[in-house]
C-alpha cells in the first residue's frame, strides 16, 4: 500500500516553475531517493512533502488523506513526519540526550518510555557515552548520528533526508551512507532521500527518482536505471556513457560502420532516427581480431587518447573513418599505447535506445 502519493505536484515561484507534473508513489517501508543536479526541484519536492511550502499545483496524500494542495496545507508539526537537514539542525542549546528526546517529549509520552526509547536509540547510533555532551563538542559524523537518532526515535510516518551527507568528508560520507541504510533496514521507516550524488542514491535506495529541470525523468531500481536508462539525461547522469546515433531501416538498425537486427531492441521507440547509450564498460578492446561470436559486433579501431585513473584506464578509441568515437573503460593491467591498432567488441544487447 502506498504511504505517500504525489499527484501532478507542481511549484512555481513567480514565473519560474521549480517543479511540474510530479507523479510518484512511495510504498510503505520503501527507501526512495530523489536524485538530480542542483536546481532540479528535488529539495522543493521534499519541502512540500514536509509541509514547509504549499504546492501551486497538484496534491500530496498520505495514507489516502490529502495533506497539501494549492488550497491549503497541514502544517509540518501535524504531519507526523521527521526530517534530517543538510545543516543537521542540531540544537546547540541542548545536550545530545535532550536533542534526541525532544520529539518524544512533544508527543507527551510517559517518562519511562522516553527514557527507554532514548537509551535504545543512542545505543543503536553508538552515542550512549556522549548523551550529556553539547553538540559543539561533537565531530561532524557524531552530529550526523544525533540528527539521525532524533529523527528516527519518534518513529515517523515518513522520514525525509535533505542531502544529509554533503557536509561530511569523503570517507565519513561512505560510512554514513551504510549507516543510513542499516538504520532503515532495522526500522523499516518509509524514507525519502534527496541527494545530488548518484553513488549515495545507489547505495541506499530501493528506488531512485531522477529529476532534471523541474521534471521527473525516470523512477526505477538502481540497477534498472543504470542498465535501462529511458532518457538521455538519465543515461548521462547515472554513470558515464557513449551516445551513438542510428537509423532504423525495416528490420535492421544501421549504425556508423555496423548494423544490428531491430529485434535486439524491443524497447526502442518506433521512429527512424534513434539514439543509443553504450556504457564504456560494455566495450571490450582486443589487440588482434577476436573470434566471431553470434550477434556480437567487431570493429577495427585505433587508440586516440588515454588517461590512467588508478582504478581503471580510460581509453578513447575511434574507427578509421572517424565516424565513431567511443570511450572505453579497461582494468589497470590492460595497458595499451596511443596509436595502437585495435579491435573493439560490442554486444548490441547491452545497448539501450533512449527517448
Amino acid at each position: 500500500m502506498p504511504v505517500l502519493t504525489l499527484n501532478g505536484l507542481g511549484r512555481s515561484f513567480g514565473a519560474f516553475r521549480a517543479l511540474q507534473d510530479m507523479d510518484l508513489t512511495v510504498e510503505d517501508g520503501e527507501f526512495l531517493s530523489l536524485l538530480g543536479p542542483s536546481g532540479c526541484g528535488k529539495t522543493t519536492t521534499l519541502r512540500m512533502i514536509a509541509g514547509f511550502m504549499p504546492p501551486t499545483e497538484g496534491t500530496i496524500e498520505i495514507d489516502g488523506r490529502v495533506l497539501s494542495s494549492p488550497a491549503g496545507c497541514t502544517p509540518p508539526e501535524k504531519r507526523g513526519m521527521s526530517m534530517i537537514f543538510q545543516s543537521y539542525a542540531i540544537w546547540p542549546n541542548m545536550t545530545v540526550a535532550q536533542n534526541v528526546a525532544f520529539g518524544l517529549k512533544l508527543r507527551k509520552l510517559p517518562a519511562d518510555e522516553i527514557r527507554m526509547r532514548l537509551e535504545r536509540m543512542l545505543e543503536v547510533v553508538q552515542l550512549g557515552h556522549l548523551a550529556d555532551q553539547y553538540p559543539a563538542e561533537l565531530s561532524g559524523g557524531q552530529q550526523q548520528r544525533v540528527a539521525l537518532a532524533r529523527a528516527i526515535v519518534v518513529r515517523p510516518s515518513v522520514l525525509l533526508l535533505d542531502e544529509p551527507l554533503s557536509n561530511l568528508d569523503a570517507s565519513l560520507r561512505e560510512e554514513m551512507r551504510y549507516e543510513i541504510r542499516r538504520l532503515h533496514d532495522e526500522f523499516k521507516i518509509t524514507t525519502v532521500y534527496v541527494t545530488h550524488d548518484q553513488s549515495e542514491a545507489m547505495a541506499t535506495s530501493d528506488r531512485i527518482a531522477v529529476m532534471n529541470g523541474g521534471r521527473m525523468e525516470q523512477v526505477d531500481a538502481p540497477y534498472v536505471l543504470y542498465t535501462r536508462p529511458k532518457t538521455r539525461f538519465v543515461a548521462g547522469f547515472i554513470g558515464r556513457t557513449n551516445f551513438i546515433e542510428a537509423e532504423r531501416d525495416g528490420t535492421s538498425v544501421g549504425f556508423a560502420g555496423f548494423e544490428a537486427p531491430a529485434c535486439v531492441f524491443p524497447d526502442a521507440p518506433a521512429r527512424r532516427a534513434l539514439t543509443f547509450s553504450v556504457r564504456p564498460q560494455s566495450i571490450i578492446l582486443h589487440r588482434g581480431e577476436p573470434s566471431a561470436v553470434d550477434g556480437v559486433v567487431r570493429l577495427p579501431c585505433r587508440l586516440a587518447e588515454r588517461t590512467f585513473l588508478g582504478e581503471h584506464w580510460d581509453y578513447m578509441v575511434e574507427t578509421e573513418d572517424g565516424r565513431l568515437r567511443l570511450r572505453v573503460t579497461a582494468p589497470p593491467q590492460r595497458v595499451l599505447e596511443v596509436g595502437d591498432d585495435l579491435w573493439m567488441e560490442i554486444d548490441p544487447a547491452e545497448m539501450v535506445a533512449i527517448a
Partner: protein
Amino acid sequence: MTRTLSEPDAPVAAAIPARDGLLGRIRRLEPSMMLWIALIALLLFLVANPIFRLVASSLIDGRTGDLTFDNYVTAYGRARHVEALINTMWMGAGVVALSTLFAVPLAWACSRTDMPGKTLVRLIVLGAFITPPYLGAVGWILLAGPNAGWLNQIWMAATGSEQGIFNIFSFGGLVLIIATNVFFFIFIFTSNALDLVSSEMEDAANVLGAGTLRTVATITLPLVFPAILGGMIVTFLQAIALFGVPALISIPARFPVVTTQLWQFFQYPVRVEVAAAYAIPLLMITIGLFGLQKLLLRRKGFVAVTGKGGERRMIALGRWRWVMFGYAMLIASLTLLLPFGALTQAAFAEAWGRGMSFDNFTFGNFSYMLFEHTTARLAIFNSLYFASAAACLALAIALAIAYITDRRLLPFGGVLSFLCMAPFVIPGVVLAIGFYAAYAPPPVALYGSSLILIFAFSARFLPVAFANSAAGMKSIHPDLEEAVRILGGGRLTAIRRVTAPLLKRTLAGGWLLIFIPATQELSTAIFLTGPNTQVISVLLLDLSEEGNLEHLSALGMILLVLTVVIVTVGMKLLGRDFMLRRT
C-alpha cells in the same frame, strides 16, 4: 519486532480543513500570526504615526485645521530663527573638525602602532562616549566658567592677571564640549577600517622606499578615507541633534541653535505646529546626510578595506611612541579626566570654589539629593524604570520584526525593517515633537504619563534594537526551527525552546545598549516629561537653572556610577568589546 517499531505513533496526520469563509480563514491563521499583526500595529503607532503627525501638523493651522504654509513662514520668517539654523551648521562643522583631530591619530595609534597603553586609551574613548554630554558640559563650566572656573583661577594665580582667559560660554566652548563626546564615532569607524588593512599594503610602499609617515599619508589613510568620512558624517549629525550641551552653553553664550530654538517654541504658549515646521529642515539634512554616508560606505572602490587576510604587524614608533601616548593622554584629559575630575570635586564639596581641602569635603550633596530633594528619588526611579521598560519593548518589537523579515513570513518585510530603522535618522528632539503632536492632545492625551516617555524612548532606540536582533537572527539557521516543527512542535514552541535560548546573549547585549543611553536620554525627555514623570537628565537641567552646581554634580555622579556599574556588568557578561562592535 521491527513491524511494531515502524508503526507510526506520531500524532495522526490531520487533513487540511475545507475551504470556508473569512472566519474559517482567520481560524486557520497560525496563532503566532496574530502576534505579528499586533506588533505591526505597535510599530505603526511608535514610528509611522509620530513622523506622519510631525509632517502633517507642520502643514496645518493649529486653530482652524486648514492646510497652510503659515507655520513655515512663522518658523523661518525671523532672522533670529534662520540664524540659529546657520549657527547649527557651523557648530556641526567645528565639532567635526575638532573630532577628526582627536580621533584619527588616536585610531591610527591604537590599531596600527606599538603605542603603550592602547587598552587604556580605548577604554577612555569608550568612557568619553558613555558619559552623558551634558555632564561633560557641567564639568567644563566648573573648569572654564568665566573667571571662576578652575583653569581661569590657575591662570590668574600664575600670571597675576585680573581676568581669566577661558570662557566656556562661547562658540569654541560649545564645539569643544560636544567634540569630547562625539569624536568616538570617527574613532570607531576609523579603527575598525584600519583593523582590516593588511600590513602588506604598507610593506609594498616601504619596499619601494617610502618612510612610515609617507606611507601613512599616501597609503593607509587614503585606504580608510571612506570610513573616516562616514564617521565624520555621523559625528556631524550627532552634534547638530544634541540638546543638553546647547541648553547649558549656547543660551548663555547668545549663540542660538536649532534644538534650543525648538525648545523656545515649546515655552508657553506652546506652538507645536511652528516647532514641527521649524524641525523639518533639520530632518531633511539628517536624512540626506545619512543617505550620503550609506552611499560612501557602499562604494566598492576600496575593496582592500573590506577583506581580511594578510598578516598584520604593528608599526614600531621608536621614541615617538611616548609622544603619541602623550597626545592620547591630552585628549583623555580634555574629554574625561578634567571635566569629570571637576565634577567629582564639586559633588563632594561644600562650595566647589573653595577647592580641595578637608573642611570643604562633604557627603551632604548626596544625602540631600537622595533623601531630602523632593523629586530626585522619583527621577532616579523613573529613569531606571523608563529605560528598562523601553529596552524591553524596543527589543520585543525589533525581534519580532527581525524574525518576520529574516524568515520571510510576510510579503512586506522590507517596509517593516525600514520603519524599524527610520528613527535612526530622526534627531531625538524632532522625534519628541512628533510624539507630542501625535499623542499629547486628546483623545490619546498621554502627555505627562509614563507611557509616552516609554514609547518615545522605545521608538528612539528601536534601530539599535533592530540592528542587534537582525544580526542575532541571521546567526540562527532556519533549519533549527524547522527541525522542531517537523518533530511536532508549533512555531511558538520552536521560538520558545530553540530560538529564544540561542538569542539570549544577543538580547542581553542589545538590552544594555538601549538601557544605558536611555537612562541618560535628554533630548526626547525634555519635551515629554510632566511633574510626575521627571527623569534624571531633565532634573539635572532644572538644577543648572537654579545654579546649585554642587547638588547638580552629586546627581550627575549618581547617574555616572549607575552607568559605569551597568557597563562593567555588561563587559563581564558579554565580553569587553560589546559596546564597540559596529552594528
